[in-house]
Each structure stands twice: as C-alpha cells, then as structure tokens.
C-alpha cells in the first residue's frame, strides 16, 4: 500500500504557493497489478501442485489396477491354459493336472524371484499395511505361483524319457540359479531363454517326431515307420497342432506378466 500524496508534500506545496492546490481526499490505493500477479503466481503454483497431485493419483490408480486386477487376470489365464491340450483326432479339450515336480519347480522359481529382487518381500508384505492390502498382495503372489506351476506343466513333456530329461534340465538350471547372484533383468532374460528352449524342444522337435494319429497300428507303421518308432520308444503323446499355438501364447502371457511384476507392490505410508 502506498499513498499518492502525503500530507507533508501538500504543506510544502502550500508554502511554496506557486503550485496549484489540489484539494481532495487522501485516498489509499492498493497496488492492484502487483497483487494480481502475486495471486496469479500463487494460483499457478497451486494449480501446478494440484495437477501434479491429480496426475500422481491417476498414475497411482492405474498402477493399482494393473497390479491388482490385470496381473492376477494374466497369471490366472496362464494357469488356465497351461494344462490345456487338444486331442489329436477330434481336437477335444484335455485338461492335464500338473505333476508334483511342477509345484516344486514353481516354488524354487519363486525363491529365485525373491533372491533376484524381482519381488521384494518387504514391498509386498508388511505389518504397516492393512490386512486387506496384505491379503490382496498374497492373492497376486498365489496367482503368480499357479501360473509358474502351469508354465512348467505346459513345457514339460507329459510322459516317458523326454519328461525325465527335460525335468532334470529344469532342475539343474534352477538349482544353479539359486546360488548365483542375479539381477532382475538378467533373471528375466535367463528365464525367457530357458522357457523358450523348452518350448522349442517340446512343441517343435518332439512334436515333429510324434507320428500323426492313424486309423490302425499297422497303417501307422507303414505310413510313418520312423515317427511311429520314436513315438513308441519315447512314449510321446499325440496332440493336435493347435496345442502348440495355445502354449505359445501361454508362455508369452507369462513372460509379459513377469515383466509387469513390480518389485514393490505397495509403498509404506
């Protein structure tokens, strides 16, 4: 606030007498422009803060929806498709339950996730979280476990010598990884490579060695003697070609899910 004309200056003018006397009320005039700018700045800062807060809230909500709705959905879809095969002749659905070894592999894999900090325990479970949040986090973790089990179920051959060979390879790799120092990215790359190779072996190599379903045993021997021999010796199951496509997408979904898993699911407030 400032005065346009001070009383002192008026007296001085009177004294001098030469200057014209301006008679009028003394008014206080606020410095409008400065205040406006000040208020504008203040509002601008507030708006900026509000916008940042809003965008943070939107981003937080999006990540919550991603972590608590999308991730369980993708993992449970993997769990659904992992054991699905299509019959060779009529393309019927065959739901194969996971063998015990798949559960063991999935458990080792989860330990590996914790060791490589793909999942940080303190970021998923804490005394400071509400019970609901802890339960929701446990649900996401359980869906990840189910998906891991079914991925092994999808990639392991169903029976015979190939089952034991590939199961041993999985076990060897996981066991070695358990004692290695891992970064999250390296672990994901390693798992991608491991699962990719297993997929190629089962759904390209072994599937091409399997004889197609024929009307009779003799007809099969005459038409595809080598494949029939491999099918018999390696005890390879006959599935429709569609099985490979289903399992390809199952594996892709699982790897996408793993890529989206946050190390810290909930921040402590």
């Amino acid at each position, binding site marked *: 606030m400032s005065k346009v004309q001070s009383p002192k200056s008026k007296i001085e003018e009177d004294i001098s007498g030469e200057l014209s006397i301006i008679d009028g009320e003394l008014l206080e005039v606020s410095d409008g422009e400065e205040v406006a700018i000040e208020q504008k700045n203040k509002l601008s800062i507030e708006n900026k803060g509000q916008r940042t807060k809003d965008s943070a809230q939107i981003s*937080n*909500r999006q990540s919550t929806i991603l972590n608590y709705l999308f991730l*369980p959905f993708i993992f449970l879809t993997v*769990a659904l498709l992992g054991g699905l095969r299509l019959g060779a002749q009529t393309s019927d659905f*065959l739901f194969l339950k996971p063998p015990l070894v798949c559960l063991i592999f999935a458990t080792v894999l989860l330990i590996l996730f914790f060791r490589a900090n793909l999942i940080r325990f303190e970021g998923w479970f804490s005394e400071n979280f509400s019970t*609901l*949040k802890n339960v*929701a986090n446990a*649900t996401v973790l359980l869906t990840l476990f*189910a998906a891991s089990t079914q991925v092994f179920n999808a990639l392991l051959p169903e029976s015979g010598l190939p089952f034991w060979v590939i199961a041993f390879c999985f076990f060897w790799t996981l066991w070695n990884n358990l004692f290695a120092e891992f970064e999250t990215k390296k672990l994901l790359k390693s798992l991608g490579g491991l699962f990719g190779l297993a997929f190629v072996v089962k759904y390209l190599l072994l599937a091409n060695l399997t004889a197609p379903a024929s009307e009779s045993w003799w007809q099969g021997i005459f038409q595809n003697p080598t494949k029939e021999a491999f099918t018999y010796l390696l005890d390879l199951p006959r599935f429709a070609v569609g099985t490979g496509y289903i399992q390809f997408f199952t594996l892709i979904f699982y790897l996408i899910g793993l890529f989206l898993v946050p190390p810290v699911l909930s921040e402590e407030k």
Partner: protein
Amino acid sequence: MKEKHIHVLSIILALFYTVFIAWLYWAEPRTLEEVSTKAQTTIENVTTKTQVAIGTYEIDRTKFAEGLDAFRKDNFIVARDNFVKADPEKRDARTQFYIAYSYYRQGWGRISNDDALFKQGLEETNRLIALDKNFKSDDANLQIKTPVELKNELEQGLQITADDFNPLKVLRERK
C-alpha cells in the same frame, strides 16, 4: 474407485477365476458344449449336497412314482433308473429298498438265478442295512418286507447247495 475397493475386487475376482479353473480341471469337459452340461450337473450336485447338509433333502416324488410304476410292470431297468434319479444321494431307505428288490426280482430265475444281479442286489441291501437296519416296507405287493429278509434271500440265491438240484424247485414262486 478407492484403492481399498480395488483390493476387494481383486480378491473376489481372483477367487472366482480360481474356482472356475479348478472346476474345469476337475470336471474335464471335452468340448465347449460339455462345459454348460457339466456346469449344470455340478450345480445340481452342489444343490443336493447343500440340502443334505442343512437337512432339507427330499426325494423326487414324481421320479419315485414313475419308478414304482415301472417296478410293478417288471420293467426293472427303467425302475432302477427312476429310483436312482429320485434319490441321488442314496439317503432314502424306501427308495433304496426298491432298488435292491429290483435286483432280486430281475435276477430271479425258476431254474437258476443271475448271480451278477444278485451280487449287486446284495451290495445295495448291505448299504440299506447300514442306512436303516430297522426299515420295514408297507407295500402289500412285496412278500419280503425287511432288508434282512432280502439279504437272506439274495445270499441263498448265490449259494450252490444240494437243494438247487431238486426238480421241484421249478415250482417255487418269486417273492
């Protein structure tokens, strides 16, 4: 939507999806059409089991009447089918008695009995005795009234004795 609501929704949806997957692997439908058929069967089973658990289980009277009608016309296969549908939980002694009796009547022969049917009848009778050993039928058309008598009749029918070679045996009547 608040974070808390998303958590609750996440738990509920995951639970429903998990139950659906577990059901698929349990029921093993082979086609998409079978999914609905098996779902219907599962719902019916669950409903019956719930009725048993809460004590409101009752047999299907219409099916029982149809079964009884077929039983009296000596159409035992249809009769058994209706009795089984009338009492899927095998908890009604009267229905189970008729099932066991149908095996006896179907397996009975003037010269020789059908051992396979008598054995099945004996199994059903043993189950009936375990269910209600004091059961007594009020059907005037049946000569055998209790499960113990029926069991005795079936056991005797399965045994080979000197009496089986008695030519007068052909004159005996079915009970």
